[in-house]
């Protein structure tokens, strides 16, 4: 398994770079990008708003995925833990206040109708819940849980790369585009979440709940201790 890690990280880094390069067309003031052209047939209720959210999403994503890959670096964590913490804070802020909200808005006009919207909303929701829980875990000193939650965040950001690769293959093989779009969305969203759980080990399947109950127990214990101390 160990040799897979650099391969996966390289695949995601190259994919992220390719998406960023391809996304430059969204900033051309004179022309619509092909992705936007597809949306104009809907038609969009507010074209300018859609494009502004798309641009915000692209900028946030072009920072967040490479940053997340950097945050996975064990060397960085060992040698520059403060940098790891600060990069994590900045990345978390970008994700929670730019990437996910803009993604939720764009999802309203996703291909595939309600199923397309729900797929993106599920992915964004996993990012929000996992990022918040990951930060709480780190603050509580529970680094195994922190790592696990953050792996969920990275896995959902990786959906952008995996789904495009799947869509490219499906389009090349002339599968029905709308069906391929939904399959290329749902399979990576659910698959990446399942993969993280599987990698985390079967003994930890319910660790989210366990973590939550541990936190709650700790709070109760703290308050009891505080009460005993007369504070």
């Amino acid at each position, binding site marked *: 398994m160990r040799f897979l890690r650099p391969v996966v990280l390289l695949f995601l880094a190259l*994919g992220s770079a*390719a*998406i960023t*390069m*391809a996304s430059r*067309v969204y900033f051309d003031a*004179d*022309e*619509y*990008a*092909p*992705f936007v*052209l*597809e949306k*104009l*047939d*809907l*038609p969009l209720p507010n074209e300018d708003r859609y494009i502004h959210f798309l641009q915000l999403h692209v900028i946030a994503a072009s920072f967040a995925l490479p940053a997340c890959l950097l945050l996975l670096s064990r060397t960085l964590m060992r040698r520059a833990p403060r940098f790891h913490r600060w990069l994590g804070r900045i990345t978390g802020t970008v994700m929670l206040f730019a990437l996910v909200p803009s993604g939720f808005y764009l999802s309203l006009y996703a*291909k595939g109708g309600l199923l397309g919207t729900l797929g993106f909303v599920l992915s964004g929701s996993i990012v929000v819940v996992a990022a918040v829980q990951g930060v709480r875990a780190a603050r509580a000193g529970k680094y195994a849980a922190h790592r696990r939650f953050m792996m969920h965040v990275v896995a959902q950001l990786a959906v952008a790369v995996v*789904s*495009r*690769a799947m*869509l*490219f293959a499906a*389009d*090349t*093989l*002339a*599968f029905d*585009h709308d069906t391929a*779009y939904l399959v290329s969305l749902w399979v990576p969203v659910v698959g990446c979440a399942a993969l993280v759980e599987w990698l985390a080990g079967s003994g930890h399947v319910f660790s989210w709940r366990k973590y939550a109950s541990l936190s709650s127990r700790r709070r109760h214990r703290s308050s009891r201790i505080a009460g005993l101390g007369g504070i």
Partner: protein
Amino acid sequence: MAGSNAPTPAVALVNEQLVKPLAIKEKEQSKFSRARLPAAERRVRVLDDKAQQDGAGNAFFAFAIDARHGWSDDDKAWTKSAITGCVYVGSGEVFIKRGNGFHPAKAALGKKTKAAPEYTCHAAAQLSAR
């Protein structure tokens, strides 16, 4: 690239103003996008046997462009009427349908355009029936 059903001048105009520039433009398109991959082939069908008159008295033909995606060459790989519009053989103008209106052909290339006047691509009889 395109089919060749009559009337030929209309097909030739659609090919020159829409199909060929679109194919050139799409060569630059990134493969790593959520947008659909460009069509491998397109064919133009003119839908009217004889020209219709729009509300301004100009003659036009309605057309549809079918597109083939992917490696496969069988009928299933063709999307019927992937683009629809009309062509004015007299003035050499080509329009495509977008939403509820018609736009100049360059809209298909991504250029920002305004919708053509309402009578464009609508037969006079259709307009008076509204």
